[in-house]
Structures are given as structure tokens and as C-alpha cells.
């Protein structure tokens, strides 16, 4: 194609977008390392390497310009999201397999960058939690940051996990409410455990805060818009508020819901994936509200540790429909549409 107008462009690139996303993850990552040890860094490295290898292989097979796409940073973003949603002390092959599945199957078999209908990291999470439910729920205990023990857990043949794992706040809440005696209450469970914090679980609330800070920065950088994070958190909080007001013994409150598990990561980094998410302003609100609703349902009534991944995939499915029905009015046509609504 001939070089036609416009003849100059804003210096923006896909790589720039991806690098900013990675940068925005750093505050949350710092808190993660502080509270749960450096194991996550090992996982990040493993997943990143796997992502780049898988990306390289698929680009070569598909005869695409390898360096152009390999350097766009999108594979690394996927790898980081896989690593950050998986238990950091999971065996080394789990993250690698998950990342390869995300890159090879969910991304490239659907057409590569920009074409995948599902969020690659969330699809990988769903696959692994179905395949290895036990490993996927072995989360490290907060404060236990001994790196060599963690390394043994990741690479060693003998994984002595009992000493270093602990139920996450969400897990504790569900198992005890569902299985234990009928006297268990939300306040009782969360309050009884010394290591659980006051907001979203000790450690986890700080990680969530880090994601929140990075996410707000992303909004200010115009990498994402406010719609998805706001609608997600507002919906989740609204449902949690109503439920906990109705029965505070059984349902956790809004602040806990927003600051625990993957909620904050989802709000700013997962649901905001532009490729698999809704794109219109109204569509984004509906899409994010849908994820929040499904997340709350799965968290509260489901059997899995968190509901983010399934909720995201389910809403990914609805994106074409949402986008089609939420097209914003075009310049000058706002009146037409009002008149259309009124009818003849």
C-alpha cells in the first residue's frame, strides 16, 4: 500500500502498550515478593521463557515475522498473568505447560495477536485447575519467605508443602462455611485466624493494593479506560454489600471481596485485555459487571478457589453480542436514535 495521509503518527506501539502493562504490575509484584517470597520471580522467569519459546515456534511455523512479534511484549504479558494467578510454589512444569497452552492453543491457534476470543492466561488457569486441582490450591503461607524451601517446592523431587502452605482466605471461608459446623460465621473465620488481615487477608490485601496503584496508573496513561475496573469493582462490591447485609454470617463484605483473591488483578489487568474484552464504553461496563457477578457466584457457591477465570471466559463468550448491541451513537446521529427509540 502506498504511504498516504496521515504522513506522521504519534510515537505509539504495541510494544509500548505491553511494556506499560508490565510496568504497572510491578507495585503488586513487589508486595507479592515481600509477603510471599521470591518464588514468584522464578515462576515469572519460567513462564516468560516458555511464552517466548512458544511464541517463537508458532511464529516460525506460521511464517510470520518472528522478531517483530516476539518483541511486541504480548507473550510476556500473558506469561506474567499466568504466573501471577498460579500458586508461586507450584512445580516448575505447571506454569510452563500453562503458558505454552495459553500461547500455542489459545493465542496462536486462534490466529495470533489480536485474534484470540478468550483471555489466554485465564484459559490456561481454567485448564490447570481442572487438571490439577490439588496443586492449584497449594498457596504459600504468608510470611514464609524462605527461598530455598520454595525452590525445593518448585524444582525438588520431594515437595514437603505442609509447612509452607496455608489455605487462602477465600478457601478458608468456603471450606469452613460449607463443611464445618453450622456455627461458623464469616467474621468468626476471618477473625479467628491470626494471619488473616483486616481487609482482604494478610499479605493479599497489600498485593491487591499494589495492583490497584498500577492499574490507576494504566488508566492515567490511557492504556485502559476507567470503565472495566470501575464496573467490575462496583458490581462486586454492590453484590457483596447486599448479600452481607442480608446475612453477614454467611456472606463476606465488599471490601474483603474486592481485596482478596484475583479481584484487583482482574479489574485492571485481566478483564481489561482489549483483544478478548468488550470495546464499546457501554459494552465494557456490561462486560465487567458480568465478570463481577459471575465471580461472586462462583466464589460463594462454587467449588473452586476463585471465580475470576471462569467468569472471564464466560464473559469473553458474550463479547461479540455485547459489542454489537452497545455501539455508541455516531456524530450527528444521536437525535436519530432517540427518535428511533420513541418510535414513529
Amino acid at each position: 500500500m502506498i504511504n498516504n495521509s496521515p504522513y506522521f503518527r504519534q510515537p505509539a506501539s504495541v510494544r509500548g502498550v505491553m511494556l506499560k502493562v508490565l510496568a504497572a504490575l510491578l507495585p503488586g509484584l513487589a508486595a507479592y515478593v515481600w509477603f510471599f517470597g521470591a518464588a514468584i520471580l522464578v515462576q515469572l522467569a519460567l513462564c516468560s521463557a516458555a511464552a517466548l519459546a512458544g511464541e517463537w515456534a508458532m511464529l516460525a511455523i506460521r511464517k510470520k515475522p518472528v522478531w517483530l512479534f516476539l518483541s511486541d511484549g504480548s507473550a510476556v504479558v500473558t506469561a506474567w498473568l499466568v504466573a501471577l494467578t498460579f500458586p508461586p510454589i507450584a512445580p516448575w512444569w505447571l506454569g510452563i505447560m500453562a503458558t505454552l497452552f495459553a500461547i500455542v492453543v489459545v493465542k496462536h491457534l486462534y490466529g495470533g495477536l489480536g485474534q484470540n476470543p478468550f483471555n489466554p492466561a485465564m484459559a490456561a488457569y481454567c485448564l490447570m485447575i481442572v487438571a490439577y486441582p490439588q496443586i492449584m490450591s497449594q498457596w504459600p503461607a504468608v510470611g514464609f519467605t524462605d527461598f530455598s524451601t520454595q525452590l525445593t517446592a518448585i524444582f525438588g523431587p520431594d515437595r514437603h508443602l505442609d509447612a509452607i502452605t496455608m489455605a487462602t482466605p477465600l478457601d478458608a471461608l468456603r471450606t469452613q462455611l460449607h463443611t464445618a459446623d453450622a456455627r461458623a460465621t464469616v467474621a468468626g473465620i476471618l477473625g479467628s485466624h491470626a494471619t488473616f488481615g483486616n481487609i482482604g487477608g494478610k499479605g493479599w490485601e497489600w498485593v491487591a493494593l499494589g495492583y490497584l496503584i498500577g492499574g490507576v496508573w494504566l488508566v492515567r496513561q490511557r492504556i485502559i479506560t476507567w470503565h472495566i475496573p470501575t464496573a467490575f469493582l462496583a458490581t462486586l462490591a454492590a453484590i457483596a454489600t447486599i448479600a452481607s447485609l442480608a446475612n453477614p454470617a454467611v456472606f463476606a463484605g465488599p471490601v474483603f471481596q474486592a481485596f482478596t483473591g484475583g479481584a484487583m488483578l482482574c479489574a485492571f489487568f485481566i478483564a481489561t485485555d482489549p483483544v478478548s474484552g468488550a470495546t464499546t464504553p457501554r459494552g465494557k461496563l456490561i462486560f465487567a459487571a458480568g465478570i463481577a457477578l459471575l465471580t461472586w457466584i462462583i466464589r460463594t457457591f462454587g467449588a473452586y478457589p476463585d471465580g475470576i477465570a471462569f467468569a472471564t471466559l464466560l464473559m469473553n463468550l458474550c463479547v461479540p453480542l455485547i459489542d454489537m448491541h452497545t455501539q455508541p451513537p455516531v456524530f450527528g446521529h444521536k437525535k436519530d436514535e432517540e427518535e428511533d427509540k420513541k418510535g414513529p
Partner: protein
Amino acid sequence: MMLKKLFAFNGGVKPDYHKGESNHLPIAAAPLPAELVIPLHQSIGGVPHPLVHAGDCVRKGQLIGGPDGNVSSAVHASTSGTVKAVEPRLMPHTSGLSAPCVVIEPDGRDEWIEHAPVPWRSMSPGEVRDALRDAGVVGLGGAVFPSHLKVNPGKLGHLDTLVINGAECEPFITCDDMQMRERPEGIVKGAAILRDLTQAKQVLVGIEDNKPEAVAAMRAAVERLKAERIEIVAVPTRYPAGGAKQLIRVLTGIEVPHGKRSTDYGVQCFNTGTAYAVWEALELGRPLISRIVTVAGNVETARNYEVHFGTPMQDVIALAKAKPDSDRVIMGGPMMGYRMPSAAVPVVKATNCILVGSKALFPPPPPEMPCIRCGECALACPVDLQPFEMYWFSRAKIFGKAQEYHLFDCIECGCCAYVCPSRIPLVDYYRFAKSEIWARENEKTAADTARERYEFRLAREEREKAEKAAKLAAKATETKAKLAAQAAAAAAAPADAEAAGAAVPPEPTSTATNDPKALIAAAMARAQAQKAVVHPENVEQISPEKQAEIAEIEARRAKLREVAKAAQPQEDQ
């Protein structure tokens, strides 16, 4: 001063403006070139017909191209001289196509044709429109729409607001800026004329606030002239604030949809340069023969020049001294301009800027990446489109869907491509889709015409056949009647014959006048007889008379065959 309430349009971008490069020097007059190549087609609408021939002497301002109908605009000689040719020359258009031009060799005297102010105040609106058309006044913002077509109050009978567009939002271009600074009175007087012609209640002159000198000069002129109901409004600098619809939105809050007339909403919009041209045409009686052109980009001294139409762009570029690494000439700005096929193409009414480009100034776009649906383009779109969806469908050639996403509302401002992190040349895809859709519509129209013609032919043939059959039927009835008469005669005859004792064998047809078999037999017999007569003759050398005779016979035989055919089914019964 009262602060006017302004409105905003969504989207838009803030590119580097590069205005300071060309607006620090006053407007200079570009010298007359050795040869002026004046295209006849310089506006939207019909191509004016040439009124001069090679060898004719013309004077400055003389009509050389007569408007073709009402949607067209006149073209004039930019100076006095001799017409060297009226021939196709390369046009200032990306296509590289040629079109008829009047080539004039200036005589250097620059002699005006006799001209006098137009008494427009005492003329009917139609007469004023004709005067503007004959003065060649068109929109000088770049769209070159014939201005006379816009000088009417519209359906409502009057305008609420007349917008004069001095926004000049494209980077590099400063021709309107400089004209407003140096010739504000002409613009204000032109705006006042347009106000009276359109019966507008108020005139708002919108100027982007990065041109404070122009705003000040225009305000001073309004005050000096005591112009009524004309307000100079500084609008926020954001590309494309100078788009007519965007500026109307900013100044009045009204959104004129694609495909609708702005007058239906009580608004009309003219460029400041056009207002000046209107004033010149009506108050001075001068047709449009030159304009102010910015020469900028990869040049030593960017500046504005008053350039006669028909001056080769390279002559104007030479004044500004293009740098050696220049690799292209663009007409218009960097956001919406068109690349010229050669620097030799002439300056025309649409030439607001000659932008000299180089690889350093306008680097070739980095490799295109897939769309990641980040939505930056939708945020930048001043028409609130979803550019990535239009791109998706244009690329996949699903043009119907592209149109559903309002492809034709796209003003091709380039904001989407400007912000795209995947560096997709989005506007190129829209241009491609639009031209494909137009081509298909043309094809469909052509096919429809062909089909209609074919159907008409079929109908005609059918009709002729029917007429022929009717004639034959008439003839057959006649024959029948004749035979019946003969039979009657024969029936009447036997008595006499018997009486005479002469046995007359009954005619075979007599008993069955209504029997087609008999008719055929009779006809065949007659044909046989005729054939017998014709046969012996030498067929190779036939006189015209004979040929005519044969033709006649052939025709008759054909008719008979028809009758025989018609009789066939009855025989089968």
C-alpha cells in the same frame, strides 16, 4: 467581553503543529511563471467548458472556462497573455491522471479585463448566486465546493448562525492565519456580505486559540468596521476543530449528521479565505484568480505566497528552497493532504498548502501489526465511530458490515491512524472500502441499465411478433373469406353447369372452407405454382426488380409456413 459558551466534540488529537515555521514572514507575491497551466476542473461539480482556443489573447480575469450547469464554477485567466494550448495536462491529484487545461504564456503586462463592483444589494438572490458562480468563487478550505450553491438561507428561510471557519487545524498550514492577520477587513466584509445573503442572525468566526494574532486582528477589524452580529471566537486547539461539522459543533452545539444539509439545522459554514473571495468578487468585481498558499515542510524558508492559479508547484517550492533530501510534494497538510504525482502540477483553488516532505520529516510507517482492539482509534475519532470495527470489515471486504458501522460518516481526518499503536494505515482501508463500494454501485447501476435494455428489447421483439401474428391472422381471415366466396360461387354454379351439360369437377376447397388442411393445400399448390414459375430462371444474375419479387415471394412463403404451423395442433386432434 462576554465569554461565549463553547461545546466540545469527542476525540481529536494534538499533533505537533509546526505553525511557527511559516507564519513569521508576511505574505509575499509569487512571481508569474513562464507558463500557467490552468485546469478547467477546479471545483466540485461539472467540468467547465473551454471558452478560448490556442492563439487567443486573454487578459487577467477573463473567463476561460464557462461553468457547466449550476453545480459548477467558472475558471478565469490568472494573468494576461496568449493561450498556447487547451490540452490535457497532469492534474494536482494522487491518481496521476491528466485533464483539460488552458495553457497561458503570460505577456508580463498582467493586464486586467474590465471589471466593476457587482451591485449585489440590488440584485435578486439568484442573480447574486450567478455572479458568484461566474466569478469562480469556491470553498478555499480545500473542499472547493462551489460557494454560490451555499449562499442561500435554506429551507427555514433564514440561518441562525453563519460560521466562518478560520480554525485551520491542520499542522504546517498558516495561509488562513496570515490572511486573517494581514487582510482581516476583507474577510470581515465578506462575512458581512454572506451574513446578509444568507439572512443569518449571527456570524461566528471560529479561530483556534493557537492563533492569537489572527484573533486580535480580526477582532480589531470587526470593531473598526463596526460590523454587526459578527463575533470572533477563539476555539480550543485540537485537530480536527477546522472540520466544518466539528467547528459547527464547537460553536453552536449542533451536530449535522452525514448526508444532511447544515442549512436544515439553521447553520452554514464558509472558510475565511472564501469570505475574502466573496468580498473581492462582489465589492471589487474581481474573479478568483489567485490564493494564498503555504509552502512548508522540508524547505529552507517556509512562508505564505499569493500564487496565481496555474503556477507550477515547483516554482513556488523554488521560492522556499526545498532541502536536498526532499522526496515528495504533498498538497494540503500532513493529516489529510494528497501526495502529488509531480512537482510540476499547477497550484489550483484547492491548494492551501504545498508541503514538501522527506524521509526524515515524515518517516515511512513502521511495520503494520495486527489490531489489538485497544480502542485508541475510537477515543480519537471526532465522529464517534468505531474505527477498528470498520477496519476489520474493510479488510475482510465485508463492505455491507463496514457501512453498518457508518463507514460513510468517516471524514478521513486521519486521527485513528495517527494514534494507532499497531501503525495500521486505517484511513487507507476506509478509502479502499469506499471506492470499492462506489465501484460496485456503479457496476450495479451499469448492470441494471443493461438488464433494462435487454428487457426492453425482449418486450419489443415480443410486441413485433404479436403484431406480425395479428397481421397474419387478418390475412388468413381474408383468405378464408375469399375461399368462401369462391365456394359459394361454385355452389351456385352446378345448376347452370348441369344445365349446360358440362361437368365441372367440384373445387376441392368448396366443401371445407373452414378446414385448415384445405387452406394449406390451396396455399401449397399456389406456392408450388409460383415456384415452378421462378425455378427455371437463372438465379445467379437477378435484376433488382426480380430480387424484390423474390423477396416478396419469400415473405409470402414465410407467412404460409406460419399458417401451416398454426394449423398443426388442430391436425393432431
